[in-house]
């Protein structure tokens, strides 16, 4: 039988990113979902975790300064 005993906020918050990554067991997933069903603060934490992940995921490529690009192009030319 699955143990769906209520978990405290600290435990739920500690697992939110892993929950979003599907990196926790189905049992823990169920516990987090049960906690979220009655805890508004942790639902806010979950929304913020999603926003933070989206913020990081959209930060992958900055512009490359022209002098760096030129140096690397010259390097490749000499390969």
């Amino acid at each position: 039988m699955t143990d769906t005993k209520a978990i405290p906020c600290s435990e739920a918050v500690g697992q939110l990113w892993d929950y979003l990554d599907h990196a926790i067991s189905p049992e823990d997933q169920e516990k987090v979902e049960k906690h979220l069903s009655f805890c508004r603060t942790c639902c806010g934490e979950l929304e913020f975790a999603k926003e933070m992940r989206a913020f990081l995921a959209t930060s992958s490529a900055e512009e490359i300064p022209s002098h760096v690009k030129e140096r690397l192009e010259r390097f490749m030319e000499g390969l």
Partner: protein
Amino acid sequence: MHAGSVIDMSEAGVRDRTKEAFQELVLAELPALYSLARRLVRDGAEDLVQEALLQAFRAFGTLKEDAAAGRWLKTILVNVFRDQLRKRSRTVDERPMGDLSDFSLYRTLVDEDPFPYSDTLHADFLRVFDSEDLREVLIRLPDIYRVPLVLRYIDGFATKEIARLMEAPLGTTLARLHRGRRLFEREMWAYAQEAGLLTKES
């Protein structure tokens, strides 16, 4: 890594493996590669990219599909970085970063309310960080926490792949990601205050 000179034009998506083809493929990936390097090292990002390009060119023949070039180049860059890290220090930087168990950036923002007129407090907090601010926060973190965080959440590597690249057990990698996220959020808050990011909007 052996020098790859295999030329196989029979496979779909694979062109020739000449220097020109290499340059063409790499050029499109340079911004992402350089950005990753700048998040891995405080100084010497150009040198890191250059060494990665040298190794990538030597192994060009092993690239199966041109479409995979971006991930292939990043993987090589991370390998070069890991080897440099190992040469630099034989011990893992496990310096204590204080007690993180109680810190929640979400709750800190609610409690401190840096933008009293905002209906979207948490999203507004993230918006004050430009890419340089984000880099500054990341670079403050010890390597063992920063690297998994960058690879997982900015560059989209799977946790298993990160464990393999950093030659660390999966459980250790997961624990470092967990601690790294907390640390990152705490440093975001500290940096926002120090750099005056919170006064811009108020």
